[in-house]
């Protein structure tokens, strides 16, 4: 695992159409270029990508289930759940006690880092497949498991923290301040929003659909759906190019916010994912996942949500500044993971002995 290998893998990872489309998007914004992807096109592609993750994941899960029952999957599922609980706590602690951010901002950002980014999953999946290490069949299921709990825990931490702060202030001022219930929706509302939100509904819905129809339909008839949603990656990767172009445009627009958020958040957006990634690779390996699987688990654990988390945080912790979390998640961690993180997680998993 020497440096030259990392460099080669970096080059093989970076100089391919998908990351370069992301770079083109950023570049275009920097020179005030005119690429404009209609929002509806972007949404259409993201619907397609989420459905693809779901149905293909369900399809492979059905094969795994058919062959091994739940014997291979329960440990990785448990590991993922544990990771979903640890990461928001790690993130919150660092933000609040090292970075000295406000309770709301710390919890808000922690919610993003406790959840996951579907595009990071896709790129990591492509990466390990390209390296020739087919990941375990149940990995897409882990993505759906990871989506929710981290957001829930971070929001609860935020609510408790704000409650205690208010009590502290109230007892300080000696008076009895009336609780201001109106500000911010309830956590249950926010969780309902996440669980029934577009990402989870489409991924879980199509996972179930893929699972059931694989068990019921003859393999040959399922083929056409596999073709459309994944096989040979044709449409899938092409769509990803366009998707990342738009992500690059959005990121480029937000790059100037990097200056505003300050060096702490930049360091946070790089170092905490590395820690989370290591935890992911480690627990994944303990749970018996293969090299491809461990790498992907590391990548998704390290990644920060920028689709599911923002509206939930906005609803429950409106005081949290969305610029901070979006800049960290989309402007720092996402490109870091795409460009450098994934090869590092691969190397971590390999060093830990995953095969």
């Amino acid at each position, binding site marked *: 695992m020497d440096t030259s290998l990392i460099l080669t893998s970096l080059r093989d990872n970076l100089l391919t159409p998908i990351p370069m489309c992301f770079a083109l998007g950023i570049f275009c914004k920097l020179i005030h270029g005119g690429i404009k992807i209609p*929002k509806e096109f*972007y*949404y259409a592609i993201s619907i397609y990508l989420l459905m693809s993750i779901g149905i293909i994941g369900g399809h492979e899960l059905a094969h795994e289930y058919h062959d091994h029952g739940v014997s291979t999957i329960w440990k990785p599922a448990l590991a993922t759940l544990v990771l979903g609980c640890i990461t928001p706590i790690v993130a919150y602690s660092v933000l609040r006690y090292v970075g000295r951010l406000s309770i709301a901002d710390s919890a808000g950002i922690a919610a993003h880092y406790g959840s996951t980014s579907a595009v990071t999953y896709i790129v990591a999946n492509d990466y390990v497949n390209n390296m020739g290490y087919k990941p375990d069949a149940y990995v897409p299921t882990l993505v759906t498991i990871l989506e929710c709990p981290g957001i829930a825990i971070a929001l609860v931490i935020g609510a408790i923290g704000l409650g205690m702060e208010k009590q502290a202030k109230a007892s300080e001022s000696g008076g009895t301040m009336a609780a201001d219930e*109106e*500000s911010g*929706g309830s956590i249950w509302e926010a969780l309902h929003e996440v669980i029934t939100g577009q990402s989870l509904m489409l991924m879980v819905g199509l996972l179930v659909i893929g699972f059931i129809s694989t068990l019921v339909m003859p393999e040959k008839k399922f083929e056409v759906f596999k073709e459309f949603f994944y096989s040979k990656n044709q449409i899938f990767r092409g769509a990803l190019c366009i998707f990342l172009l*738009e992500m690059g*445009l*959005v990121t480029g*627009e937000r790059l100037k916010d990097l200056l505003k958020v300050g060096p702490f958040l930049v360091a946070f957006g790089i170092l905490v994912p590395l820690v989370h990634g290591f935890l992911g690779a480690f627990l994944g390996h303990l749970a018996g996942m293969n090299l491809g699987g461990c790498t992907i688990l590391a990548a998704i654990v390290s990644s920060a949500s*920028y*689709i599911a988390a*923002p*509206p939930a945080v*906005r*609803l429950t912790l*409106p*005081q949290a500044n*969305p*610029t901070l979390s*979006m800049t960290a998640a*989309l402007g720092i961690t996402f490109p870091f993971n795409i460009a450098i993180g994934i090869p590092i997680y691969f190397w971590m998993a390999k060093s830990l002995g995953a095969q």
Partner: protein
Amino acid sequence: MQLHTLKKVTIVIEDNLRQSLVKKICELGATGYTCHEVQGFGSRGARSDPFANNVEIEVVCAEPVANAILTFVAHNYFENHACIAWLMDVQVVRGSRYVAS
């Protein structure tokens, strides 16, 4: 043409608040609303990408309802959300329809 003078409230706000706000608007006594997506720029920066855009909501209603809506919006959204709201007089055809009894 018989016209009623009513108020029209216009609210420009973060799109993800749309659903809960329009529900509230109807609870506050409006008989309907009309809305469409917009892009915007204001003190909270640009709101024009898929992760952050606005909606403009128009409500034709009687003055008390208009006041209730504006008070609700000001109290709940002004501090932490991208939002602007204004009021104007409009001459409405068959206006009595839009005054809930």
